[in-house]
């Protein structure tokens, strides 16, 4: 185990790398995400000793071993519960939850629901490769219908869950999306997630080269990206396209989005929807967009902060007249005295 001693000088991305050899398949999207996290941490001046990476089980979940911070590789699907305990014991810590589509949405869906609804101050990064990588390629709850896998040789028949739609339904107050290969974008999204107090949910489309290669090519390939990706920005019109002239608007009178081209058929810039991070309904519509008919929405789709769980818990405890620490707290003797009455034997 490396002993990293603190320097007062700024930490560089590489300073967040542990001495452990990274063991993902060559070409795995996880490498890019790891790189982005190193960069984001360095940029926001994170302290290794105050940072904790918590994960469940899966390829994605190996993440903590590659960090020079504190790390807890827990069990399958339970990282949010353990991270909640860490924050409740020490709210000062900066806690990240790294999870996969199976870890976070299959076995771990319930903890994900509750950590989001409680709004515990965590950064939750879900590596969505639409497959179970570590166990060699079975389909996952995010796999599209018809996915052929060792457990579904004739193709899966169940309908996939949308990670972001689920998060919004669970009451998440920060929902964002990025892609493993979009380095600067991903770093930016991670920084926004970190800045948000409360549970920040980030879905990263991640390519599993071995068991689900190219699953996201439809919108992640460089060529055509301009037409298949919608980069949302608060207060800016929802526009995309190589020609920078296509956008989204509400179908007149209907609660549906449609793609329009500015300066065509009398459509003007003012007809386009302007992105409002704080509007949950808009967020729900945006995350439901799918190619080919629509571009895929990326960036901070929803951000609507409220006091975080652990903060509220301690506010209440202080209000109850607690001393800062258990040791400093009122004497036990007082507690042991009974409200139902005591008696003395001499």
């Amino acid at each position, binding site marked *: 185990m490396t002993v990293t001693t603190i320097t007062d000088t700024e930490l560089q991305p590489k300073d967040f790398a542990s001495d452990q050899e990274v063991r993902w398949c060559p070409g795995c999207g996880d490498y890019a995400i790891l790189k982005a996290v190193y960069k984001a941490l360095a940029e926001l001046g994170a302290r290794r000793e105050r940072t904790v990476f918590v994960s469940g089980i899966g390829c994605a979940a190996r993440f903590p071993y590659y960090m020079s911070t504190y790390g807890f590789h827990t069990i399958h699907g339970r990282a949010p519960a353990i991270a909640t305990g860490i924050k409740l014991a020490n709210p000062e810590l900066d806690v990240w939850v790294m999870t996969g589509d199976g870890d976070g949405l299959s076995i771990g869906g319930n903890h994900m629901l509750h950590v989001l609804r409680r709004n515990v101050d965590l950064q939750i990064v879900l590596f969505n490769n639409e497959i179970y990588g570590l166990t060699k390629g079975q389909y996952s709850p995010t796999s599209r219908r018809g996915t052929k896998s060792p457990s579904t040789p004739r193709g899966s028949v169940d309908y996939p869950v949308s990670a972001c739609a689920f998060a919004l339904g669970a009451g998440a107050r920060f929902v964002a999306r990025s892609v493993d290969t979009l380095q600067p974008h991903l770093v930016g999204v991670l920084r926004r997630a970190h800045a948000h107090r409360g549970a920040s949910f980030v879905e990263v489309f991640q390519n599993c080269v071995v068991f689900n290669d190219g699953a996201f090519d439809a919108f992640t390939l460089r060529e055509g990206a301009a037409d298949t990706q919608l980069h949302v920005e608060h207060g800016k019109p929802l526009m995309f396209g190589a020609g920078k002239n296509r956008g989204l608007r509400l179908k007149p009178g209907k609660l549906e989005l449609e793609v329009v081209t500015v300066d065509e058929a009398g459509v003007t810039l003012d007809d386009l929807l302007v992105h409002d991070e704080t509007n949950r309904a808009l967020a729900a519509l945006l995350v439901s967009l799918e190619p080919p008919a629509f571009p895929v929405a990326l960036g901070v789709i929803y951000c609507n902060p409220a006091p975080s769980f652990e903060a509220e818990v301690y506010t209440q405890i202080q209000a109850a007249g607690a001393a800062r620490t258990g040791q400093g707290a009122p004497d036990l*003797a007082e507690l042991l005295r009974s409200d139902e009455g005591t008696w003395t034997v001499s």
Partner: protein
Amino acid sequence: MIRFAGDSGDGMQVTGGRFTIETALAGNDLTTFPDYPAEIRAPAGTTFGVSAFQIHFGAVDVMTPGDEVDVLVAMNPAALKVDLRDLRLGGTLVVDTGAFTERNLAKAGFPANPLADGSLARYQVLKLDITKLTLEAVKPFGLTTRDAHRCRNMWALGLMLWMYGREREVTIDWLKQKFARRPEIAEANVAALNAGHAFGETAEMSEYGSGYTVRRAPVTPGVYRTVSGTEALAWGLLAGMRGAGLERMLFAGYPITPASLLLHTLADLSRYGVTTFQAEDEIAAIGAAIGAAYAGAIGVTSTSGPGMALKTEMLGLAIATELPLVVVNSQRAGPSTGMPTKAEQSDLFQAVHGRNADAPLAVLAAATATDCFEVAMEAVRLATKYMTPVVLLSDAFLAHAAEPWRIPDPDELPRFPVRFRTDPAGFHPFLRDPTTLARPWAPPGTPGLEHRIGGLEKDYDTGHISYDPENHARMTRTRAAKIAGIANDIPLQSVALGADPGALAVVGWGSTYGAIHQAVRRAREEGVDASHVHLRYLNPFPRNLGDLLKRFDRVLVPELNAGQLVHLLRAAYLVPAESLSKVEGKPFKVSEILEAIRGARAP
């Protein structure tokens, strides 16, 4: 022994509680046991709705809620229906005739009125219209009929206090203070109490005289109170946290009968350094406790059978990552949902063996309500000193049972300060203390000790992931040795009562303490050479236990399960221990154990 029984709404628990205090004040030793209706609130007047409170007291230490009831106070027909079976032949039965209406009789399922059909001939029956007497007594205070009716329990209490020559002052003060904001209610209750007492004094009652008065029991000097097993457990955990010098306890639980009480009790104690967290399920609850332990707090979770089952995988993680954790299991009757409100001791196998792989941890059990305090402190001590999860076994009976307790002076409580690792030199997370074999506790936030832990096997010398065969064998041996080593850090097993060596060792654990103790005492009075050995440490066993048991001709193991401790003892020491099993969701009766002792004595 007295039992107050009535409808859930009749305030029997309060009545019993007050009688308990007055009795304790009178210097009697006692134990009490409340018997609530099953989980769902049942319609008033039905047998499912009956709530009872029982007090067993006497001159010298009383440890069981007793076998047979001497006096039964039945506030309605349903209560009579349910509780009569426990009244000893010739026992006294006090009934509120005012509540024996057609409707109530029907609800209780009485074809005919038992007060009329002579079916109670074998008991001394006191038919009193408590309802009417109470309403009269409280008329002056102009309460609503509902509120007036509610004073019936105080009338009954007054009568009982008179019967046993008890005082009323403390109760009167308590009533005044309790209803401070509604003086008329307070006054009415006091009036009812006095009326009941006065009624006792009147001629008609003389034959019951004060013959019931009981000699004082000799007790150690000090300030006393009554305490339930749940309260004692909660405070013991806090005292443990203090003893370990820790800043905080995270208590994470998910409601389940009968464990919820502990969550409720601790939820009120946030001022003392405990943070309570109601999780979405038992898995998340123990998960949060493990996270807290990792972060430098003492993690505690509490549940009952079905919830314990759900914690199995997380216990494995706590064992693999060697984090300090206390898991309280208030055992109830199973399998599966079973009988949620009934007590059983059937989770011992699960505690000791119930995990995948070789996954040892420490297992303790509390014997009495007051013992819960010490066992809880001990659990925290072992968890933090050995960096291990500790399972503390309680049960549905201990959770509710209450006893008088000498309040300890906080300064006399043990201290076992934790030392967090801070020195980076030579650090790795599985570097072990040579004597305890515990790994260092280095919570996040400590500069220079950044490290990663997890459920995969780790290298003994570096703490990194390792799939090396010999290393896994070494780590498995070490995990086992660490827990086994606890045996050197706990008291040798002593004999609670009786000779050593001897003819018969009656070996128990947990809440059967009182019944076994009484049974062994009576057996010895009968001249039977029996001794009582009661285990607090179920894994590891005290290191002298094997030799101790081998010094007896026979070993009898009474348990509220199908025979679990007896199995563990036979495997560990090859002693031909015999099982005395009871699985009725109820505590042992002294007589049941006494019979078995007599039987076992016979060659």
